[in-house]
């Protein structure tokens, strides 16, 4: 029983990370129907941005105080992630806006490799995993029979708060409405005075900011990062977005929690243990796609028209 609860808690913490990344996948897809496979790498460079901030920008005196250094690391991670995402949009995707859909998709894979290799080559010593500072915030917090790292709780809290904020922003603000309008009918949206490029840039920026936050928090939770964390978590996040119904914000977050739970529970209880936990994730994905191709919360294709 304790194991079950503990694994559920671990699954939720993993889902929180994946969810922050999945939101970026689903938002970009909603606006320009591009599966941005390089989005996982945005998460990765966000983590390295936070690490670089800690190593080279933070003054010695405040490194140990997590309530000072963590916000600054988050800021550094977000700035790096957003910058990379905007450059990617401007120079890799925008020239292909009207190309056949396969072209930007392949480009996304290319961008993904470029970013992985750029970090490996140019971040000092990054051909091996880089330790994240763990001097701060390494408390274990006990809730009844289960025990979680403080960083896991932080991830869960931040993920929930940001998801709710994003939902409010998209539903209740001018630019949020412009995003939804562009997703539903880009030409008509332009005729309402909406500049599609601004909407697309904003979408990439928001997605990247969430991924940057996730990257830094993931780093301080796992305590070391390498240039492959983007690929691995990106695949999970992409799967979560598809599972929840790509284009749907709520679907991405819920899909992420489902995947987090399948991974931890499958690793614990299914034959094969943790070596096979990926298998259960993709088995569930295949089942959902067979019986509900639009995903759990996706809108059926016809309403796009």
């Amino acid at each position: 029983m304790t194991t079950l609860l503990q694994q559920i808690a671990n699954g939720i913490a993993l889902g929180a990370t994946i969810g922050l990344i999945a939101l970026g996948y689903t938002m970009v897809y909603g606006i320009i129907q591009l599966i941005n496979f390089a989005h996982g790498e945005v998460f990765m460079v966000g983590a390295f941005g936070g690490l670089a901030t800690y190593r080279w920008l933070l003054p010695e005196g405040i490194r140990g105080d997590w309530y000072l250094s963590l916000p600054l690391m988050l800021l550094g991670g977000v700035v790096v992630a957003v910058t990379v995402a905007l450059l990617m949009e401007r120079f890799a995707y925008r020239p292909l806006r009207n190309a056949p859909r396969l072209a930007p998709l392949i480009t996304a894979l290319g961008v993904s490799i470029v970013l992985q290799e750029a970090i490996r080559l140019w971040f000092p010593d990054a051909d091996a995993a880089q330790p994240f500072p763990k001097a701060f915030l390494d408390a274990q917090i006990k809730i009844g029979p289960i025990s979680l790292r403080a960083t896991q709780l932080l991830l869960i809290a931040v993920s929930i708060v940001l998801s709710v904020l994003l939902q409010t922003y998209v539903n209740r603000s001018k630019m949020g409405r412009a995003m939804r309008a562009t997703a539903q009918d880009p030409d008509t949206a332009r005729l309402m005075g909406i500049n599609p490029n601004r909407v697309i840039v904003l979408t990439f920026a928001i997605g990247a900011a969430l991924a940057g936050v996730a990257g830094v928090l993931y780093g301080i939770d796992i305590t070391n990062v390498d240039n492959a964390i983007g690929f691995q978590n990106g695949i999970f996040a992409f799967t979560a977005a598809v599972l929840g119904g790509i284009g749907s914000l709520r679907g991405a977050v819920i899909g992420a929690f489902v995947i987090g739970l399948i991974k931890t529970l499958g690793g614990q209880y299914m034959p094969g243990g943790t070596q096979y936990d990926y298998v259960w994730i993709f088995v569930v994905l295949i089942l959902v796609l067979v019986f509900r191709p639009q995903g759990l919360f996706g809108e059926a294709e016809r309403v796009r028209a």
Partner: protein
Amino acid sequence: MTALAQDTAHPVLEARGVTMVFGGLTALNDVSLRLDRGKIVGLIGPNGAGKTTFFNCLTGLYTPTKGTVLLSGRRLAPDPSEVTIAGVARTFQNIRLFPNMTVLENVLVGRHCRMRQGPIASLLHGPSFRREENAAKQRSRELLAFVGLASAEDEIARNLPYGDQRRLEIARALATDPKVLLLDEPTAGMNPQETEAARQLIFAIRDTGVSVVVIEHDIKFIFGLCDSVSVLVQGELLVEGRPEVVRADPRVIEAYLGKPPEEIESETRGAAEQDKREKP
């Protein structure tokens, strides 16, 4: 010359020699149109005459091969969002609402280009953000009341009856604070009562100071509504003038009507009914 003097010296909307060529096909050939302040101009012509293409040129969806479009004497860039910000709004022949948004949200999207909140302000939900949101909502509700949809604001747009969707499109276009409103077949698929209501609505819009261009198949509707009528045939402007002059012009009768107007009226009515059956 001051901006104000320029405003009164020029027609509010003017198209000069608009030509649109697609590949080898000339869809529009040297079409000009003049819309004076506070007037309603009708644009008629058989199917495929280029009426909607002309609207697409006016609103920047197409870049004309030749010719210019001027709003109050100033050249309009062929960019839909710029055209809307400058003050030209339109509706569509085949309705193009944002189907998954509520009625009120559709109108609020129309308000977009007149709102100023930045991304940061809307995240913080500060007082100026709330003030602007509330003002936009109030204006949108006024417009919904104006077109007769006050009680439907929370409905999802795609669930509205057909005639209401047309009115919602008009409310959304008006939300952009246009100087000129372009209506593409506003009564297609409407019954006689709805058509009459649409006519009154267009007069009411004109009375608020918005100048209007209407594309329509319903001849009787056009002649009873417009201050001036232009006839397009095969991409060329055949005749333009006051409704009674155009109606009596033998070339129009030959090229477009083909038969005395009374017979055409009943036929176009029939065609409109058929449209309604075809469109869900």
